[in-house]
């Protein structure tokens, strides 16, 4: 794999065991002549407590990747491991915040009930209520728990889905463009919220985003996917100091450097995409 200057400069990868490991992961949709290869040998690992952002062109296979890790899709080749075990069904210690939030909330339940649903198996009753209140509060939906999803705006639905993921308190949190539909200020708040949750509970986070600033700001490592058929084009360690700070961190020259670098890599990945034409 080609190594970037930035990457090699950043020294050792963070310590700790690998929680998620992707070994030559392949995935195609369809069969026979109509089959389309989406993931074409993806390799990387996420260590315990790490915050890894995945960026890549739209349609490159980020959601597909996440679903494979979550045990929701069966790879066509290679494997994904979770805590050393091959993933064959969704691991219990993992939660997913889906990209298509409007369809992952159940319309027949209030937001509270939606959040409560997965908690029943994990926490005793008293704790649940507190957890739900805390989660709602933290995403700015305090006092909105009685609403049904279809009584809420897009951004509110998305935040409700995030609240569900947070309240579940998983060891590993997969988030698929979780902040796409919220306003700038809320986004900033939520970014810091996720960082805080990571620090507090030592949660491992795998985070898909389109916002490069966000990726660099949040991540310990940024994985850049190439255009389809998709592989890892870069694996960039973000050597910005912790804790991050919205103004200070973003002001650092290193931040600008990393940001520019990631942007360039995505550009490069995109222009390498030949499938679009070839398939047409």
């Amino acid at each position, binding site marked *: 794999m080609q190594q970037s200057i930035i990457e090699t400069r950043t020294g050792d990868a963070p310590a700790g065991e690998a929680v998620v490991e992707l070994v030559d992961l392949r995935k195609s949709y369809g069969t026979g002549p109509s089959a389309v290869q989406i993931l074409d040998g993806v390799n990387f690992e996420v260590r315990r407590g790490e915050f890894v952002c995945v960026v890549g062109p739209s349609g490159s296979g980020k959601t597909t990747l996440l679903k494979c890790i*979550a*045990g929701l899709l069966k790879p066509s080749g290679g494997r994904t491991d979770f805590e050393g075990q091959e993933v064959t069904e969704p691991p219990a210690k993992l939660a*997913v915040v889906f990209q298509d939030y409007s369809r*992952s909330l159940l319309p027949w339940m209030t937001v509270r009930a939606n959040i409560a649903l*997965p908690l029943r198996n994990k926490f005793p009753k008293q704790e649940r209520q507190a957890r739900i209140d805390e989660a709602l509060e933290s995403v700015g939906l305090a006092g909105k728990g009685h609403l*049904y999803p279809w009584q809420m705006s897009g951004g509110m639905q998305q935040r409700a889905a995030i609240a569900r993921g947070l309240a579940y308190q998983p060891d590993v949190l997969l988030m698929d463009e979780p902040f796409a539909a919220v306003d700038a200020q809320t986004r900033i708040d939520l970014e810091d919220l996720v960082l805080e949750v990571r620090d507090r509970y030592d949660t491992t986070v795998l985070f898909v985003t389109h916002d490069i600033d966000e990726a660099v700001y949040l991540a310990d490592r940024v994985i850049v996917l190439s255009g389809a058929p998709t592989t890892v084009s870069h694996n960039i360690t973000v050597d910005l100091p912790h804790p991050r700070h919205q103004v200070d961190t973003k002001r650092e020259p290193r931040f600008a450097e990393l940001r520019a670098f990631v942007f360039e890599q995505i550009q490069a990945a995109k222009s390498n995409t030949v499938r679009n034409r070839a398939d047409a």
Partner: protein
Amino acid sequence: MNRALPLLRTAALRLWLPVLLAIVWWYASAGSQNIYFPPLSTILETFAADWLGSRAATDLVPSLGKFVLGFLISAAGGIALGTWLGLSPAAREAAEPVVQFLRSLPPPVLLPIGLLLFGITGTMNVAIIVMGAIWPTVLNTADGIRSLDGQVADMSRSYRLTFAQRLFSVALPNAAPQVFAGLRTTLQLSIILIVVSEMVAAASGVGYYVLNSQQTFAVAQTWAGTLVLGLIGYLSTLVFLAVEKRVLNWQHGMRRAAEGA
């Protein structure tokens, strides 16, 4: 806003056509000599004489009891069976031929089987109703369960919801609108099957009344009995809808929201 007005409007909207048809029927049939189309007044007189008096207790109540019981068993059993078939492709494939076969049997031919298994009892009547009316609910539930959005399915799997949760919080509510559509047909069939079940070994009941009056050429009574069946259907639908409205509350709300209320 005055809340009484829309209510009145709804009532007027619901009533004008039936009232109009009743009036047309009344005048068109007045003085009718046709033996099979007696005047509406005769039908209503027969209806009042036969069904507003003692018959209500001796014939109507037992029939209603069988119908309600038959419907409830069909509903519960249909949802259970349909859920099973909807969840498990293996079960579906194994049971499919039998289910499709059974629901295509004309109910009258089920009578001998009911008679064999249950004898001449109320249980037999109820069994006939269930055997004939359960299928729409089974089919609709199975289809409704299978139509779960992939995203929702992913969500419930990734959060490792328990089987009970997936069933009662996800799959069944998702299927609910379709289940209710099926239940509505089951309701209709249950009433129809009162009549079929009373073809055999009955000496009282609404179904018996209709069939017997038909066999003995008592046409006004056949009409009056049909009127009773229609009324049972109408009233039970009212009750059914009230229940449905409670259960599908979220869905009504969603629709109203979409319509911009």
